[in-house]
Structure formats: C-alpha cells, structure tokens
C-alpha cells in the first residue's frame, strides 16, 4: 500500500516528480507548442482538463472495469475528453486552436495522462485521484510555462505579447524553431542538474561541518 498522504499526492507531481522535467513524459507537447506563453498556457489548460476529468471518471468507475479491457477503456475515456477539449477550444478560443493545430488531438497519446490513470487513478479514491491529477496538471503547466516563457522572451522579446526590451531587441529566432525547443529543454534540464549538484554539495558540506 502507498504510504503517502493526500497532500503528498498533490505536491508530488508539481516539482519532485514533475512529469516533464523529471519524468520526461509528455515531451511532445512540451516541445511542440511552447514557442509562446499563450500557446503553452492553452495547451496546459487543455491537458489539465483532460487529465483531471479522466482521473475523476476513471477512479470512480474503476471497480466496474475488468482488468482485460482496462487500458482500452482508459484510452476511450481520454479520447472522449480530448475531443471535448478540442471542440470547446475551437469554439471559444479559435485563434489558439489554430496555433496548436493537431497537437490538441495528440493529447490522447500523451503518455503522462495514460500513465497517471494506470499508476494512480485505477487504484485510488476519487478524492485522491483528483488531488494527484491536479498536482500533476500544475506540474505540467509549470514546465510548459517555463518553456514557453523562456522561448518567447528570447525568441520574440515579449512575454505574453508584452514587449520587454523595446523595439530594438534582436530576437533569437532559433528559440521559436523546433531546434530551440530541444535546446531550451536541454538548457533547463542542465540548469536543474547544476542546481541539484550545488545543493548536494552544500548538503554534504553541511553534514561535514
């Protein structure tokens, strides 16, 4: 049995087990649609919606689903919510929908979502699955906003379309290109590595002292 408390379920996904930055899940949206913060936010919102709804639904009906058709049912549930998200975005945020394009549909195959269902919702209560989904969703959002933020600031010189450096800023076009996605995620992960290394060194130093 899991020895976690509900608050741990919630906190875990935000940073310690951040789906993108630590577990390397859902990389496709994290790289493909994060050239601006707006796109990143729209993608996070859609993913958040799908993740939370499927978690709640699956954890509430988990006992009626036979083991053999478990995965198929999860996929069905996820696909349904993705379709809903797709249609609603198209209706209420058409500009964003056009920017994200096919990547909305691709939420279906985001390993992070299916992973949470398989690993958590299928064996926990609705309440805790909700907490877990919200935590993971927030973690995903944080990662995407980080990516989108850095890429937009460097690549366009704006943040949320607000110009930061004035008109003379020379944008680093590469950052909004695919290569920039890989590089930026690489930079962030390297940065986290350096941070971890320093922290460990500090802790080791502290223990020694």
């Amino acid at each position, binding site marked *: 049995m899991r020895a976690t408390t509900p608050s741990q379920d919630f906190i875990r996904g935000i940073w310690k087990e951040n789906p993108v930055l630590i577990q390397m899940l859902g990389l496709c949206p994290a790289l493909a649609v994060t050239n601006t913060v707006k796109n990143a936010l729209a993608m996070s919102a859609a993913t958040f919606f799908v993740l939370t709804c499927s978690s709640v639904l699956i954890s509430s009906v988990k006992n009626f689903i036979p083991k053999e058709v478990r995965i198929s049912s999860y996929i069905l549930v996820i696909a349904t919510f993705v379709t809903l998200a797709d249609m609603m975005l198209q209706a209420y945020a058409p500009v964003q929908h056009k920017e994200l394009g096919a990547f909305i549909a691709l939420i279906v195959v985001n390993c992070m979502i299916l992973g949470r269902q398989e690993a958590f919702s299928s064996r926990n209560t609705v309440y805790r699955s909700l907490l877990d989904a919200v935590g993971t969703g927030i973690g995903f959002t944080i990662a995407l906003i980080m990516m989108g933020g850095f890429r937009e600031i460097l690549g366009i010189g704006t943040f949320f379309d607000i110009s930061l450096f004035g008109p*003379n800023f020379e944008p680093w076009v*590469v*950052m909004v290109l695919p290569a920039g996605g890989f590089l930026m995620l*690489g930079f962030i992960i390297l940065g986290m590595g350096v941070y971890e290394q320093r922290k460990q060194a500090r802790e080791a130093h502290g223990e020694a002292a």
Partner: protein
Amino acid sequence: MSFKEEKHGVVKITAAPHVRSAESTTRIMWSVVLSLLPVTAASIWFFGPSAVLVIGASVAGCLLTERLFGGQRNSISDGSAMITGLLLGLCLPAGFPLWMAFIGGVFGIGFGKIIFGGLGQNIFNPALLGRAFLQAAFPVAITTWPGPAPDWWVLRGDNFALPFMSPGAADAVTGATPLGNLKFGDDPVATPLLDLLLGTTSGSLGETSALLILLGGIYLAIRGHLNWHIPVSILVSVFAFSGVFYWLGLSPFSPLFMLFSGGLMLGAWYMATDMVTSPVTHTGCWVFGVSIGLLVVIIRIWGGLPEGVMYAILLMNALVPFINRATQPRKFGSPRGKPEPAAEKES
C-alpha cells in the same frame, strides 16, 4: 643496487613502446592555426578592422568558454579552442555584431564540445555548430554581406551593436555573395573565376579567397596534419555532381564556379577535416567526403539557402559514428572485400 641508487635520479618505468613519433596533438592543432593565418590576414586585407573585431570576438567567446568550463586539463594550450574561434570568425560576415559572434563561440564550444566531454569527444564540428546556431538565431544579420567600403579602415556594418540589440544595418550598403547572386539575383551573372580565386568578392570573412585556403590546406596535407582523402573526395564529388547537373541544364552553377565559390574551400579543407568529427578509416573518409559533396550540390541547387556547405558537413558529422561502425577495417587474415562489420557483434 638499484638503478635509482646508481643514478641518484628518477628511474623511468614505462610501458612499451619507449620511443614515440614526434607528432603531437598540440602540434597538429597549432599548425592548423598557423596555416589559417594567411587566410585571416587576407580577410583583414579585404575587410579592414571589422575582420579583426569579428574574429577576435568569436575567438574570445571560444577561449573564455573553454577556460571557464573546459575542466581541469589546461584546455587552452592544446589549440583546439583557438581553431574553433578562428574558423567560426572566418565564416561570419564582416559587419556582424560582435556580441553575436561572441555568443556563437560560446555556443559552439559549450554545447558543441564541452558538453560531450571536451577535446576529441564532440560529434559536431564546434565552429560549424556555432555558425548553424547563429544562422538559426540571427538569420538576417548573418546574411547581411556588407558592400565595399570607401576606405580600408571604415567599419563594415554595425559591429558595435549593443548586446541583445539589433544591428542598424537595415540601410547599410549590402552586396550579394557570388552564390546568392547567381541563385536569387535578379540579374544572375556568374562571378569571374579569377575574382573567386583571389577573393575579391563579397562573402564571409574567410571564404572569399579560395587560393589562400588551398595553400594552407595543402601545407597541412603535406605535413600530414590533415587527411587529404576528405578534401579531395569532397572537391571531386562536388565537381562531378555539379558537372552532371550543369550539363543536364538543371543548375546555373558551372562546376568550377561551384568549387571556388562560397564556403566550399574552407569547409572542405578545414571544417570537414576536423579529425574529431570525421571518420577514422580511409573508406569512411571517402563515403563522408562524397556524401558531403552531393549534399552541397543538392542544397546549393535546390535548397532554400544559397550556401549548403555548413549544413552538409554538420549532417555528415551526425552520420560519422554510423560510418565508423560500418567501415571497420578488414580483419587480418580474412578474405578481402569482406570487412568485418559490426554485425558480428550481434551474436
């Protein structure tokens, strides 16, 4: 009685062989730097103080990054960072903002080399990776070729643009490179061959004078400091492929124009021959060279960019580990023509 007592000195115990060839990595690297000096001097002759500034900035970026993150070993003295800096500087336009050149050096060394473990372990040529990064990041600045200046000491373009700010080169006089002119120009005329050879054309700092690059390269080849198979295979394949396409009427570039224009000479003699990022066997080198030649011709004729040498070399750099695997030397005593492929590893 031991040797040490007898000699009152330090006894050396080393493994065989006890003699070594006079060749050394450091010496190879510095002679590459030496052979690049004429080209550098020519770029200063053609482009004035701007050339000094741009090359200086990229060298500074490379050396500083190497010094700060290059690890314990005295990584500057081996000369490899110097080569990267020089080569990167030589493939930038004269009016390039210094801060961008510096960043190119930092990226090339930092993410092209140090992250792979430093000297000898990189996959991509650091200078070219820096150049590719700059091309992707600042596409306008890097394709702004300054035209002739009224006087030698006049800066070409906006070298002193503030960091992170655009160069104000929008209304500067720009010239087209021979390749760009023939490809996208409104009045496509092939630049005379003599101009290409001497370097009295517009283009990147170091890629203008084919003759001097050729001289430097041949000097290195004679000293055994570069693998002549690579430049020869590249040049032969560019000549052959472009000849075929020219003859079929598919391309506006004559084979000789192809050979002496753009960055081909610099790329073939200095970038592709980077020992670290080229194959280790002769067969591999030929595969590598011929593929680069083919890619150069394809990108130049049909691609969206006037020049394709950089991308051709980078793409083939990525393939080098694969080529190395596929062209292992034949096992001694096994029949000829039957290389010992890595396939045997399977079992």
